[in-house]
């Protein structure tokens, strides 16, 4: 037997403590455990469409941001962004990434396909019925959406149970699934309470609790968890302190449980609970900084820059959180507009920019995997970075950053004209983003192979 040993591996250290062996002959195709990219791609495209629609809607109706936020139009557009854009992208990505991140296989692809149908019908119906403020129908469509979420939670939950170990990522994912379930239950309760007027809680308190559980519990928790996996992967680094990383997730969980309760009961403990959430986020940022400092890859691509900028948005977001939950803060025109800015920065700043950044990893990967996954070793296939324009990414970044700042200031000032003008910057960025997304998606029908194929 002829054995070749690579010089970079010390002799005797060809360890097999955790090994996996896959054999293949010319007659037998190799095993495939990764799920199909079909469903994740549908979710990703739905998410992008919802983002474009939502931002264009803001340009057509700037009063949505420039006036007090508790009205049917704000609720409709908020659900378009949160369920249409954020949930769609996150759910689609989870179907692809959770199995590979946890080194297992998706529990059921069929269930994922069914969920997509429930998701789109429920989402479209909810946004439409919120807009015309027909809460009975909102309740019906929300039930359809909730059925889809139930399928998602069950599917991903069963997938997590299959994982060989319950690690940091599994902890974060389980937490996020729990909060997602609670958000949906709270949403259904809200709709039912509107129809039958039975709730002992204040309407605003219920809505704010529902929003915080959804945004912090599902969106932020998911971003924190996924970044603990993806940032080390892309930057060639590792989680530097597992205890700190776990503590950040537990503090987010504990803080959010206290915060949601305090908001619901309109308790002054809101501020204390906020500090616990902020402490969790501080630990997260410290860990992220440690991961980044220990990276082996010098270059930081635009996808990661988008993400780190989104994380930086946590600073104004936390400052606003502390100010807005200060005991005895009067509800004035300024403070209510600041509440809108708080929501805007959370959804389009922290969450939206994170998703845009990761979408430059997720979307190319999904398309690449679908088109070129079986071609590796047969043809020369493009790298992920060759599927889109980094120059366009830079332009988009420099349109979105001032765009978000301008929209926030315009919203705080309550100026419709200024909101419309500044949303224009976001739309310009989105147009370029769509061009980049189109370049990525074009590989689906026009694969690009360099060089000749093996004969």
């Amino acid at each position, binding site marked *: 037997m*002829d054995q*070749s040993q690579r010089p970079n591996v010390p002799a005797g250290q060809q*360890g097999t403590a955790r090994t996996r062996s896959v054999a293949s002959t010319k007659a037998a195709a*190799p095993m495939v455990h990764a799920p199909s990219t079909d469903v994740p791609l549908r979710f990703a495209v739905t998410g992008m469409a919802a983002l474009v629609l939502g931002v264009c809607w803001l340009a057509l109706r700037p009063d949505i941001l420039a006036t007090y936020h508790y009205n049917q139009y704000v609720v409709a557009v908020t659900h378009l962004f949160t369920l249409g854009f954020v949930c769609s992208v996150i759910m689609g990505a989870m179907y*692809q990434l959770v199995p590979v991140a946890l080194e297992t296989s998706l529990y059921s692809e069929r269930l994922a396909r069914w969920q997509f149908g429930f998701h789109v019908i429920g989402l479209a119906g909810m946004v439409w019925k919120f807009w015309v403020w027909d809460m009975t129908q909102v309740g019906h469509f929300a039930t359809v959406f909730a059925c889809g979420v139930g399928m998602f939670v069950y599917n991903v939950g069963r997938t997590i149970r299959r994982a060989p170990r319950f690690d940091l990522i599994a902890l974060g994912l389980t937490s996020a699934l729990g909060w997602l379930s609670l958000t949906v239950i709270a949403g259904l309760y809200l709709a039912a309470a509107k129809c039958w007027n039975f709730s002992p809680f204040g309407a605003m308190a219920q809505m704010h609790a529902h929003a915080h559980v959804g945004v912090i519990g599902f969106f932020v928790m998911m971003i924190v968890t996924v970044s603990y996996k993806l940032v080390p992967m892309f930057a060639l680094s590792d989680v530097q302190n597992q205890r700190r990383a776990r503590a950040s997730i537990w503090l987010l969980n504990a803080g959010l449980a206290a915060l949601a309760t305090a908001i619901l009961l309109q308790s002054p403990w809101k501020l204390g609970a906020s500090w616990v959430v902020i402490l969790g986020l501080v630990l997260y940022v410290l860990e992220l900084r440690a991961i980044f400092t220990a990276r*082996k890859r010098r*270059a930081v691509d635009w996808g990661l820059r988008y993400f780190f900028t989104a994380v930086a948005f946590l600073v104004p977001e936390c400052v606003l959180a502390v100010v807005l939950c200060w005991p005895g803060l009067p509800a004035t025109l300024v403070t209510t507009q600041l509440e809108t800015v708080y929501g805007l920065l959370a959804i389009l700043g922290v969450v939206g920019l994170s998703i845009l950044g990761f979408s430059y*990893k997720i979307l190319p990967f999904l398309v690449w995997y679908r088109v070129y996954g079986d071609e590796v070793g047969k043809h020369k296939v493009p790298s992920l970075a060759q599927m889109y324009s980094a120059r366009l990414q830079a332009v988009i970044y420099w349109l979105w950053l001032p765009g978000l700042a301008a929209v926030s200031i315009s919203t705080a000032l309550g100026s419709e004209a200024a909101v419309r003008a500044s949303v224009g910057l976001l739309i310009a960025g989105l147009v370029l983003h769509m061009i980049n997304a189109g370049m990525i998606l074009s590989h689906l029908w026009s694969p690009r192979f360099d060089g000749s194929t093996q004969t």
Partner: protein
Amino acid sequence: MVSEIRWFNPNLTAIPMRSPMIDEADVYEVLHQVEDPELGCNIVDLGLVYGVIISGDQVKVQMTLTTPGCPMHETLIRGVQTALLNLEAVGQVEVELVWDPPWHSSMMTDYGRARVGAI
């Protein structure tokens, strides 16, 4: 019987296979064709290939990934199998994925480090 395999890499001339014996250099040359699409570098220069064992028409590749749970996990393993099975003398390929020793950037070649932009 003389067969000839022409590879897609324009810098790589045709590899003539003049006997059913598997040449270790050919195996590594073929493995150079398998690239990690995220890092834009082939698995050999990334230092992911820990060893190759040739036995008759069988090739066993011992390799790792940059991180456990890498989304390219299946693709890279399949790519290694597909690429090696294209060598006429290869009848069976076994890919053994190991995590010990864990991959480290120092395992990359100079070319790999340059491609990845490693510190």
